[in-house]
């Protein structure tokens, strides 16, 4: 076993510095962590989005592993093709295919191809970096945008309170394909993310991990507080951390429950939910979403008595 320090040093190089992600970008940190867990023997397939733009500007690249970007909506199919080529050339035991996409590519434009990839049983780990809107094009609503978030295409106004629909439940939709491993993770919980990536890569077949990655630009949060907001999202119940293995769900318990109001209040994307006279009733509605997650996934540790 190499020491932790040695292992970190060798693997940090797989996604190198010098890329052009914004300060406090949750996604760039998560990519580095996913690759650190995955190691060198991978091929990364990436859909169009922030990650591709900030990491692959010709003639520069942050990728120390083989990397391919093709288009926005075809990542499921491109990854399937890479996997098929590795399978027929009998390299699939040595090389892992990791598809990386944002929530827009996953929930919306690329969804058909992803469903095909899952249904066909390709041996691919699909990582969705979920920052809850189309950030690369300037913060437009995606299917993964949560209730009442402000985006540039769901602006609050006199007749609107922003995005009126709930967040699309991608992990459960993926799980419904009968794949062997589905998990959610957060950039705030690094050992948990590390463990899930390693576990996923030890399983053959389609695997899916949705990592919650705050976007300071899109959320209107301080770059220095990215991890804090990611942690609050988990601890209020809005982004539950769980694994579904062969249909069986296990969740990570919340250590100390945070009221949804605390999570929403300091993000510009939810500011319109707080008037001079205090929070609007919609905050209570969002609390209901969190409570329902807590109930559904059994997120609270059993209290004594």
């Amino acid at each position, binding site marked *: 076993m190499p020491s932790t320090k040695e292992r970190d040093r060798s693997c940090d190089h797989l996604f190198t510095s010098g890329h052009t992600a914004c300060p406090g970008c949750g996604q760039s940190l998560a990519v580095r962590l996913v690759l650190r867990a995955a190691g*060198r*023997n*991978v*091929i990364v*397939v990436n859909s169009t989005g922030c990650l*591709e*733009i900030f990491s*692959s*500007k*010709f*003639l520069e*690249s942050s*990728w*120390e*592993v*083989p*990397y*391919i*970007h*093709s*288009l926005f*909506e*075809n990542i*499921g*199919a*491109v*990854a*399937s*093709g*890479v*996997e*098929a*080529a*590795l*399978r*027929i*050339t009998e390299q699939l035991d040595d*090389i892992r295919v990791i598809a990386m996409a944002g929530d827009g590519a996953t929930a919306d434009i690329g969804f*058909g*191809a992803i*469903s*095909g990839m899952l*249904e*066909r049983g390709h041996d691919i780990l699909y990582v969705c970096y979920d920052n809850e809107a189309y950030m690369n094009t300037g913060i437009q609503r995606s299917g993964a945008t949560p209730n009442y978030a402000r985006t540039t295409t769901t602006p609050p106004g006199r007749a609107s309170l922003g995005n009126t629909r709930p967040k699309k439940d991608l992990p459960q939709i993926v799980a419904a394909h009968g794949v062997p491993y589905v998990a959610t993770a957060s950039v705030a919980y690094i050992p948990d993310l590390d463990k899930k990536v390693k576990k996923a890569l030890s399983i053959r077949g389609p695997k899916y991990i949705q990592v919650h990655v705050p976007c300071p630009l899109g959320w209107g949060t301080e770059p220095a507080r990215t991890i804090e907001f990611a942690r609050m999202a988990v601890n209020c119940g809005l982004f539950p951390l769980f694994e579904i293995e062969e249909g069986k769900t296990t969740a990570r318990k919340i250590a100390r429950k945070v009221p949804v109001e605390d999570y929403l209040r300091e993000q510009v994307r939810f500011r319109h939910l707080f008037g001079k006279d205090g929070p609007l009733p919609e905050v209570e509605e969002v609390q209901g979403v969190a409570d329902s997650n807590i109930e559904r996934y059994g997120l609270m540790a059993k209290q004594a008595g």
Partner: protein
Amino acid sequence: MTKKMMQGCRAIAEMATLCRPQVVSAYPITPQTVIVEELAQIVADGRLKAEFVNVEGEHSAASLVLGASATGVRVFTATSSQGLLLMAEVVFNIAGMRLPVVMVNANRSVSAPLNIWNDQQDSMTVRDSGWLQLYAENNQEATDLLLQAYRIAEDHRVMLPVMVCVDGFILPHAYEVVDMPSQEEVDAFLPPHKPIYKLDPGKPLTMGAYAEPDKYMETRYMIQHTLEAAIPIIEEVAQEFKRSFGRSSGGLFEEYRVDDASTVVVVLGSVAGTVKDLVDELRDQGQKIGVLRLIAYRPFPKEALCRALGKAEDVVVLEKALCLGSSGPLALDLRSAFHGRPASPKISGFTIGLGGRDITGDDIKSAVDRAQLRLTDIDFVGLREDLELEGINA
């Protein structure tokens, strides 16, 4: 080599098999379906060791072979019409990434109205995508071009995708005698694919990077430059094919009785047979007429075409496609090729056989007569005369 009576779809699938693609992906669409059904059976029978991946649409079929090609294996896909249009985004992407994908397109009209029959509007729509496009006259040529397509695409001087266009139904569904080479003969002509670059953890590289204005234009310049350089390579591969298999097939175009012709009909694909019959008939009546059948539409062999057609008075372009609102694509290309040259024939353009409309000898004769009478920019041949068409929007 074995001569066999076979259906076109089988001949194409057999040749695809002989070319040993390792990943095949397609989505069913009439009239391409028969080709991929044959291939699926061949893979199921264990005659071809390949991953045959049934995808959820043509966009994914093209994307899947893109991913496999980038991983360094030989790939095959086939489509038609709406399928090709759905693929269009990926078609451009494959060329931009310089991947030697080979595709058979069973040429079919484009909706609306829905029509499953042959014309060439589909492949013409992606003529500017950076792919090489080769058009076959018959099933023998379709199979020969497919074999040559891999040689051209994977040539390190080219590294661009090739589309073999076969007229839907007319070729894939027809039974013809096809001279099918043996596996040994094909292997000798087409060595295993040796990619210049591929996705490999042993040698990591970034593919599909993003290029800002200071870099993008050069990528387009390089494709244009390569396509021009591919013209002699297409001829070279055809010559080598002749040496290997003892018969001519492929190349830039075929000339039939063009030498002393004052009128030359120019066509793409399967209609050439009908035109050749008419040419024989008119020659018997004393007309100096010939037909030039273009095989390589992209890259467009300007110089060779101008040499071949430069002595004619009338060039009559019959096209199963048109640029709606402008003119016929092939006629436009030919006129542009002759532009500024001291001697240019009169180039007339005709739209013919759209959506599977039969093309008769009389139709072709009427186009030739009209062209000889006056210069025609774009004229429809074979329109129904029993319908009032002019007042439709009035």
